[in-house]
């Protein structure tokens, strides 16, 4: 569904991604793991068009989207749930969800989808008129996920969805993501919590210093010696 080949991305003169290739099949949950600063977030930012690629290709369902704007990429069905949740702090929960559906023109269906998201996340329904900045971290993450769902994406990208959340909330967030996969949406997830990511994914890529150094099925990588030592604590 999504094919990335030889993607290079730079911040100024520094190459943050040094020519990576990866592929995601329809309906899969693919994890991108690695240490801080390995280039995982940069990869997502580049796919979603916020950070232009220096070279390489990103192909979605056979169409080259490397040079597309963030707006066009979203319109083609890739939603990006950014690191640190990034909800709009001074907008209400409902307004945040509406922003997720910004490009959609079918307002009746948008209203239905919004109600569906609010039913799925009762905590948000209770706070629908509250500004998002006053929500807890977990609630903000639910809102960020709900907002991404509102664009009706084919592929959802999650950047560190568990970051800074309490352990029981982390579990909930992973269950939600698993639910989204089961409903048929393809997922690319960046996660520092390597164990959880490998446990739930179909396929995983390990990034180190801007390159992909290892890839395989989640169950294989969990038993890999290098990964065990470096990322799973022995």
């Amino acid at each position: 569904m999504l094919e990335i080949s030889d993607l290079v991305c730079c911040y100024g003169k520094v190459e943050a991604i040094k020519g990576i290739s990866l592929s995601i099949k329809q309906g899969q949950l693919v994890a991108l793991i690695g240490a801080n600063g390995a280039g995982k977030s940069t990869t997502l930012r580049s796919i979603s068009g916020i950070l232009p690629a220096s070279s390489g290709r990103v192909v979605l369902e056979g169409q080259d989207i490397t040079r597309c704007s963030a707006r066009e990429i979203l319109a083609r069905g890739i939603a990006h749930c950014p690191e640190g949740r990034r909800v709009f702090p001074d907008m209400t929960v409902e307004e945040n969800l509406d922003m997720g559906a910004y490009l959609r023109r079918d307002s009746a269906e948008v209203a239905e989808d919004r109600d569906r998201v609010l039913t799925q996340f009762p905590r948000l329904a209770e706070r629908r008129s509250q500004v998002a900045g006053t929500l807890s971290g977990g609630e903000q993450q639910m809102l960020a996920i709900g907002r991404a769902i509102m664009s009706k994406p084919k592929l959802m990208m999650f950047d560190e969805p568990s970051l800074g959340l309490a352990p029981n909330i982390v579990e909930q967030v992973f269950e939600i993501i698993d639910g989204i996969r089961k409903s048929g949406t393809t997922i690319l997830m960046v996660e520092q919590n390597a164990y959880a990511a490998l446990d739930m994914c179909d396929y995983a890529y390990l990034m180190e210093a801007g390159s992909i150094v290892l890839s395989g099925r989640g169950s294989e990588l969990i038993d890999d010696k290098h990964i065990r030592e470096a990322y799973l604590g022995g």
Partner: protein
Amino acid sequence: MINMLILGSTYALLGIGLTLIFGIMRVVNFAHGELYAFGAYFVYFIAVLLGFNFFLSLLISIVAGGILGALIEVILLRPMRGADIDTTMLIMIGAMIVMQNTEQYIWGGVAKSVSTPFPEMPLVIGPFSVSWLRLFVFFAALALIAAAYFLINRTKLGKAMRATFQDRDTASLMGVNIQAIYMATFAIGSSLAAAAGALLGPVYVVSPQMGNIASLKAFAIVILGGLGSIGGATIGGFILAFAEEMGAGYVSSGYRDAMGFLLIIAVLLFKPTGLFARSERIG
């Protein structure tokens, strides 16, 4: 008292326009006062010289202010996207100088007056008397302030503007066309400034220098209300007008314009984020 309300409402228009532009685009718009002067001159031009209906002239001036704003944004600011705030500040100072001198070149330095269709006889209610024109200006300004609120808080464009203000990258992930939002913001801010000029021009006189003091006052209002706060700019406009009237009435009319700046110095000393800003926000 009535005077204070008229000034306050038009000051609020000026302030809202400036605070929108700064809040969303991080551009310090030194040409804001010139857009105010542009509105006043445009009314003079089409109402007096071309003989259009006065109300229609007001409307056309406001729209023309918006178009001029959009042009300034696309031609002067868009190529400088991502530039330092000081750079865009210099560009806007340049735009101010060009606009002011163009006005002087076309219309000359002599102040013009705009006649209106309102009766000369003031409206007298008990001990108060107020001219029809001033009454109209007050309500028209209030209507425009309400329209600005509605636009920002209730429309899709307004939501996109607020989202861009709060988190530009994430707004673009939602599919917001940031370039278009910047253009719309500058156009709306400019048309509000032009509206203030178009409304106040007929009350006073229209001169090429009118923009200077208007710019200074707009900055004063925005500082009073807190950067990026529309509610703050509205209230700031009224506070400034109140301070000026009080200063002119009880101290000396020569100090009218100084009162506002005394107020700013006081605000900056005691509450540097502005009177109404929680933190930086818009809406």
